């Protein structure tokens, strides 16, 4: 770069062009080219693609079971959330169905992963606003949920637990007691989070009426998940098109009308409670039984297509698998929520202040690796 540093003449005249990322403490693995006029952002151009690994293409060279570990790499903090729709679609292609117990365990894992992912988000949001305690606390409490998930899935983060036909192995016997103990503890912690962060006057001053996304904009930009619910639309794939056995549990969809950064925070916090609520109900409903439908030989799909849409931690995760009867899928198309959030972010950033950039950016829970796939 010829004109590094303070030379701004070819970077937008009297405006300052800032490259936020890919090496910036306030960006993920992507670059945001921001034009600043005084304290206001007048232009925001995202530059994703730094962590593109061609997950869709890779999926065409692996069979249905080999695909699982690499398809969860884009969102390792929500590993079950991202592989569950793939497995459901693959099951449609292979024409198997998971037993009831496996469906319940999948729900437990999906909700545990949602909690893990939301707690990670909460920690980063704390440090993005300069609140270091709110970084350490959720990250510490997240370990408890990771331990719970580890006792089922075997590893801390990348479980590769859900497989076509069921789940890999059964739950440990004392899982229910452990889980309820953790939830009891965490319910108390949520009250402390509220005291120190969510009801903190400076935090509310920083996030309320910042980055407002109206209902119309949210629909127009294709926003999904918590961001859509924070804009006042009670859309949740778990309720709208129940998969697994979500129609047997009773839970609420937290929504807010405001559509600002604070609303998105509160919606995610309430989703944490709803996830624990779902797991509690599932633990009451679950009964002993087989956990896997054994498929002999190599999994080979019927020629055809399968669409599956599920609710991952960041929004609607959509898989479209095309099979031509080979042992490898012909095409795997992944439609991720983060890419839509990126479009929404650009929309929200223009016109806001530079200091609000982290408050808006991370309130959308944009995960660059997921968007790049």
């Amino acid at each position: 770069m010829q004109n590094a540093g303070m030379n701004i003449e070819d970077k937008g005249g009297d405006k300052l062009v800032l490259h936020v990322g890919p090496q910036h403490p306030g960006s993920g693995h992507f670059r945001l080219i921001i034009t600043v006029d005084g304290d206001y952002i007048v232009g925001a151009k995202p530059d994703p693609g730094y962590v593109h690994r061609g997950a869709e293409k890779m999926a065409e060279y692996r069979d249905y079971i080999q695909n699982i570990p690499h398809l969860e790499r884009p969102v390792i903090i929500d590993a079950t959330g991202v592989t569950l729709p793939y497995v459901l679609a693959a099951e449609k292609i292979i024409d198997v169905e998971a037993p009831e117990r496996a469906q319940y365990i999948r729900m437990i894992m999906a909700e545990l992963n949602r909690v893990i992912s939301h707690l990670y988000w909460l920690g980063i949001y704390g440090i993005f606003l300069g609140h270091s305690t709110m970084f350490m606390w959720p990250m510490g409490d997240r370990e408890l949920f990771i331990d719970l998930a580890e006792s089922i899935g075997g590893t801390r983060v990348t479980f590769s637990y859900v497989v076509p036909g069921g789940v890999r192995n059964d739950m440990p016997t004392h899982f229910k007691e452990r889980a309820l103990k953790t939830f009891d503890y965490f319910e108390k912690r949520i009250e402390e989070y509220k005291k120190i962060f969510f009801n903190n006057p400076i935090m509310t001053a920083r996030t309320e009426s910042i980055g407002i996304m109206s209902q119309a904009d949210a629909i127009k930009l294709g926003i999904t998940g918590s961001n859509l619910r924070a804009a006042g639309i009670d859309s949740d794939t778990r309720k709208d098109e129940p998969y697994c056995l979500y129609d047997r549990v009773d839970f609420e969809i937290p929504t807010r009308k405001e559509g600002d950064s604070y609303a998105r925070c509160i919606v995610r916090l309430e989703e944490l409670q709803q996830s624990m609520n779902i797991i509690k109900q599932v633990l009451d409903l679950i009964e002993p039984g087989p956990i896997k439908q054994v498929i002999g030989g190599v999994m080979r799909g019927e020629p055809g297509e399968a669409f599956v849409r599920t609710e991952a931690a960041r929004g609607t995760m959509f898989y479209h698998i095309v099979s031509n009867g080979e042992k490898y899928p012909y095409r795997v198309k992944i439609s991720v929520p983060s890419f839509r959030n990126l479009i929404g972010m650009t929309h929200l950033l223009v016109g806001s202040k530079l200091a609000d950039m982290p408050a808006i950016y991370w309130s959308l829970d944009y995960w660059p690796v997921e968007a790049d796939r």
Partner: protein
Amino acid sequence: METFEEFVKRILTILFWLIIVLPIIIFPILFLVVGLLGIDVIIVNEILTAAIDPLKAIKLAERYGLGFSSTFFKIAVFPGFTFAALIATFTILYERKLLAKVQLRVGPLYAGRFEGILQPIADLFKLLGKELVVPEKADKMFFWAAPILSIGLAASLLSVIPLSPTIYIARSEFSLLIPFAILGFSPLVVLIAAWASSNKFAFIGGLRALHQLAAYEIPMLLSILGIVILTGSFDLMKIVEAQKDIWFIFPQFLAAIIFYITILSELERIPFDLPEAETEIVSGWLTEYTGMHFGLLQLGVYMKFYALALLFTLLFLGGWNGPAFLPPIVWLLGKLFFVITIIIFPRAVLPRLRMDQLIRIGWAWLIALSFINIFIAVIESSLGII
């Protein structure tokens, strides 16, 4: 990986070999040169033996007017630079430990046998060992000047602040005004550092610091006016003596709060750490500084921390006043520890403010409140409360 103890062991090994090599090679050469040139051997001998024997070093220092009671000792060691730097480095350690306890962590643990007590020294060695990177497009002279200016300003703040009736560097009739006059230069240092770095993020950080320091300097000065009205003096000694019966934090509570908030802003601490807001502008005006440059800037900031905490103690908490069973300096340091704690604590519980909110608090609220405080002081003074 090398642990801290191994690192110290390595340093000690180097020192050991140095001490072995010194008498065998360097001393004979030195004495040869000295003998041939005909310099007074006794002085050289004394200086060389003093390097090994501390008792002789003290005697030597006293002979040349550098003893415990000399001005040089006061400026350089106690209560001047070295003492302030020690307090500053251990403030950093204390801050890290305190934050760690709040955040359910352990904090520094391995350097030193007890609770990472040697972490500041380990950090110092780490910073000393790092490369000094000066950006190609930087204004080299000012880039080098900023760390030195920063630490120089912070140290000169302490020149007239007394630690007890007997322990002080210099006395002045206006010892309350002088630190604030020096403090007025600190935006300049930040601006020099920011401009010389030739970095956009540093530039934004520098401008933010300028706005912030300008907005909070005025309420800071206005808040201490109440005390000047009550005591009728700019002399810190007299102000502390006036607090024999009642600490000024009680009649001047509003002033204490304003002064505390402005200290937080002056030190760029959360919630006012906008000039260094990490997630927005990398590290603000410190972005391009590495190694010991960064170390000196950081030390300057924490020495300023010490000076301002000391001023708060002297102005509002009665300074060294306390029951006589402990010496005055112990009372002062105890109160200072408390003040340092309350200055650190917001970092554990508060997020960062935004620029417009910060400016509004500074210009609209704090200045108005400090004028109200002046009226309170006038009323108290006319009623003869103090």
